[in-house]
């Protein structure tokens, strides 16, 4: 198995849904051993992320949503169950293959931005474009998130929202197949959070990148195509949103 150059996703869709599946998982279990006790973070999760879709994974803290996102992004491996990226089986991938998967296909946005403090905004994006195959220019990626004038600022010179937008620029600069965002507004105030969501929404719309946003913040769900609610490591409900709200229309 390998995530060869340009291996774009063209798998037959196993779901009745007519859209192409980018990522799908079935029967996902994740059990952590914490000292003497086993903690079940995921207890059999099935779901699919479709091409071009904006999916929100909603759940309270401890519902297993970060674990799910880590597994989908190839940062962690499930205890049981399978994850498919197109036709490739992620659960069989070894570490090098997972690295290659992340390198070619996944864009990550974290709650705490995870920027490298010793690098400027442009350099943080270059960190990814240096190793990607057909990346955007760092300046263009930063322009896309509205930071074209903050290229040479260090993270410490940027506000939280700006830092998160740099993180988004870094994630999308490689033109990923999927954009995975873990509580992207979790550390931001309302106004900044809206600005960040607006950027994600625009990327999804303009670049057509399949995006999954994890959040505990229910009103954000209104901007999604589809909302999956997780509780105690299980999918509790799934709902299609009729009309996607614009980020600017949200409030909480």
């Amino acid at each position, binding site marked *: 198995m390998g995530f060869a150059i340009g291996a774009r996703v063209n798998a037959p869709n196993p779901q009745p849904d007519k859209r192409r599946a980018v990522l799908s998982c079935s029967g996902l279990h994740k059990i952590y051993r914490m000292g003497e006790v086993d903690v079940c973070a995921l207890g059999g999760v099935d779901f699919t992320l479709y091409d071009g879709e904006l999916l929100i994974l909603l759940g309270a803290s401890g519902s297993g949503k970060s674990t799910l996102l*880590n597994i989908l*992004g190839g*940062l*962690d491996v499930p205890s049981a169950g399978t994850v498919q990226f197109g036709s490739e089986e992620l659960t069989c991938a070894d*570490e*090098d293959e997972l*690295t*290659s998967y*992340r*390198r*070619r296909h*996944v864009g*990550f946005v*974290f709650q*705490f931005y*995870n*920027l*490298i403090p*010793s*690098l400027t905004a442009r*350099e*943080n994006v*270059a*960190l*990814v474009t*240096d*190793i*990607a195959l057909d990346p955007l220019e760092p300046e263009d990626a930063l322009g896309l998130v509205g930071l074209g004038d903050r290229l040479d600022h260090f993270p410490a010179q940027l506000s939280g929202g700006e830092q998160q937008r740099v993180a988004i620029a*870094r*994630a999308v600069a*490689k033109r990923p197949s999927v954009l995975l965002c873990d509580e992207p507004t979790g550390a931001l105030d309302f106004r900044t959070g809206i600005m960040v969501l607006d950027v994600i929404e625009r990327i999804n719309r303009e670049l057509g990148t399949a995006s999954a946003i994890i959040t505990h913040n229910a009103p954000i769900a209104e901007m999604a195509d589809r909302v999956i609610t997780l509780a105690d490591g299980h999918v509790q409900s799934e709902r299609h949103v009729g009309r996607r709200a614009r980020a600017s229309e949200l409030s909480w």
Partner: protein
Amino acid sequence: MMASALNRKLLREVKSLKGQIATIALVLAGGITSFIAMRGTYASLDRARDAYYDRYRLAQVFATLERAPEPLVHRIEALPGVALVETRVSEQVTLPMEGMARPAYARLLSLPSSGSSALNALCVRTGRLPEGGRDDEVAVLESFAGAHGLRPDDHLPAVINGKLRKLHIVGVVLSPEFVYALRPGAMFDDPQRYAVLWMNRSTLSSAFRLEGAFNDVSLKLQPGASEPTVLSALDRLLLPYGGDGAIPRRNQISDHLLTGELGQLGALSGMVPLVFLAVAAFLMNLVLNRLISLQRAEIATLKAVGYTNREIAGHYLGLVSLVLIPGGLLGIAGGVALGKSLVGMYGAIFRFPNLSFDLSASLIATALLVSLASASCGAWFAVGSAVKLPPAEAMRPPAPARYRQSVLERLGLGALVGPNGLMVWREVQRRPLRTLLSSLGIAGAVALLILGRFGLDSLDSYLERTLRREQRQDLAVSFARPVSPRVVGELARLPGVLTAEGQRTVPVRVRHEHRMRDSVLIGMSRTTSLRQLVERGGSRVPIPPDGVLVTTTLARILGVNAGDRLELEIREGERPTVRPVVVGFVDESMGLSVYAPTELLADLEGDLGAVSAALLAVVPSASPAIQERLRRSPQVIDVSELSSDIQRLRDMNGSFMDVWTLVSITLASSVILGVVYNNARIALSARGRDLASLRVLGFSRSEISRVLIGGLAIEVLFAIPIGLWLGKKWSEQFMLQVDQETFRWAVVIAPRTYALASAVSLLAAGAAALWVRRSLDRLDLIAVLKTRE
């Protein structure tokens, strides 16, 4: 290959780590400096020696004898394995140098009447070699010429066979036979008082009545010839002609000392750099471990965005190159400077025609490779754990450090040291390995300081205690030929002389079972008070009425026990062989002597107890007059004053040791500074939050400094005694490299050396702690408390 943004990250991090990188680079530089200087000096001397011996055809076998007719050469040449034979005339003469209280001595050697020397050729430094037919022309060994400012066309007075002659110096030369020119029987070289002179064979032959004869022969062997076979065949051949026993090149005094010195240098060049490289590896590991634990989230991010383990490992290992580049440049520069001065110091003692510090590319490459390997090895363990971390786990902060109560605490340590002390103590015991390794690093530096000074202490102790205890005379008088014991009685009656005792020394070959050594038999009066023989443990051994006393080392070499019989072959006169009983052992620091009562020697030699030397105890104020009077006597060839010999030896060694002390202080301080500073930085970075919390709670700056520095103080205080002990062990180990048959100084380390080593480590550690304390004073309380960790 590293991506460029990643390289920029590396460069930026270097800025915040500059103190740490500088100190590690300094330690690494110390390793490279000592490696290049010592290995380079070793290689330079080794190469210079080989080239010198080769070019000037140093013989492989040497023998002296009383007198043999020249035609014997053909029989020597016919011995199996012999390639070349060169015969010479060799005599000892005195040189009554103007302005010198004591005469100088010279070995006078003949040059072939025609053509150049087939073996032991001379390297002419200035002037030329004596020409045939010129009776008064002489070439002088450079060391002596230098000590007296002699140049070609100067004149040199010499007493040759009882006649004072004025020799005309035509050349100043060097000889591979006298790289180290030590007068036989002397403790140290003395260029002022020992010369080697070369003159025409015909002149010497007629002066010493050796026309058509020789008394010195050197051989070159055929490739693959058996040296022991040639030696014993030559011995058999020369025995009827008063052969003294042939020796191979390695036993020739100059080569023996040079090789011994090289051996010590080789041993040091292995030991010293090891300390630095091990410490550098440890520090690299320490700093990277901390850096990586601070950058867990960054590593996770790099992994999340798709960097491979190799790229991440390469990124952190890149830090190694940033340490290696300045450390390497500084180390090479320091190594060249130190190497040049070492070669200069050796060159002043060991005389070579072309001795310079050779800096070979392979030496630099080896030094850099070894340093790279050591630093990478330290880094690898730190980086290895970082890349193994699954990215999802790296994203979470590390689990809080676990602290436990130790046995000491349960026993009530807390009540003694208070909560501050407990914090210090728990930090130390939570990282026992780091504490241990830090202490070992500092201990290694302390040991280096001891190693740099022990030679001086041991020599001092030998001179002050051993020598003074064994030899209680003020003056020692050597006679040109053995004299009647009546002469000793006359000396005793000189005004100012308190005691005079005669001594007889004869060369012997000692055998026991299949083992054999050449040595000297010293005959002494049983009532001697000026010479004291002691056995191991320091108690006095009297001269026995029958039998002999043997130096402990000789007894060990020969495997002799008390009660065994030794075979002693006297190597002069009638060459009798006797088999006395060994009745006791003497513990001496030098030589392999055998002691017997004068009566035994008188019987052997049949000369009624003649003496070859006299020991005198004199009234100090009368000493100069007595010396003056004795030197005028034609029977006396030398008068030596023990106290001035001791002083000279001390001065000579002192200046040499001062340089070593300075070098070892510099090198050791860099190690201690490196260890303490890095530990302190890391403690500060790891515990900044705790310390800031303490400040918020109302602790003063000096109180929190104590918490931070307390742990370091424990490491240093723990390290010092270990280092002092280790230094003694290393010194003993080093002493084993010294030829045991020549010197056996006990390793003595003076209290002042222990004090110096401790003081240097405390000072270096204190400086490092102060350096870090400045950062502690600038601790931004609010910012630190806000940091997420």
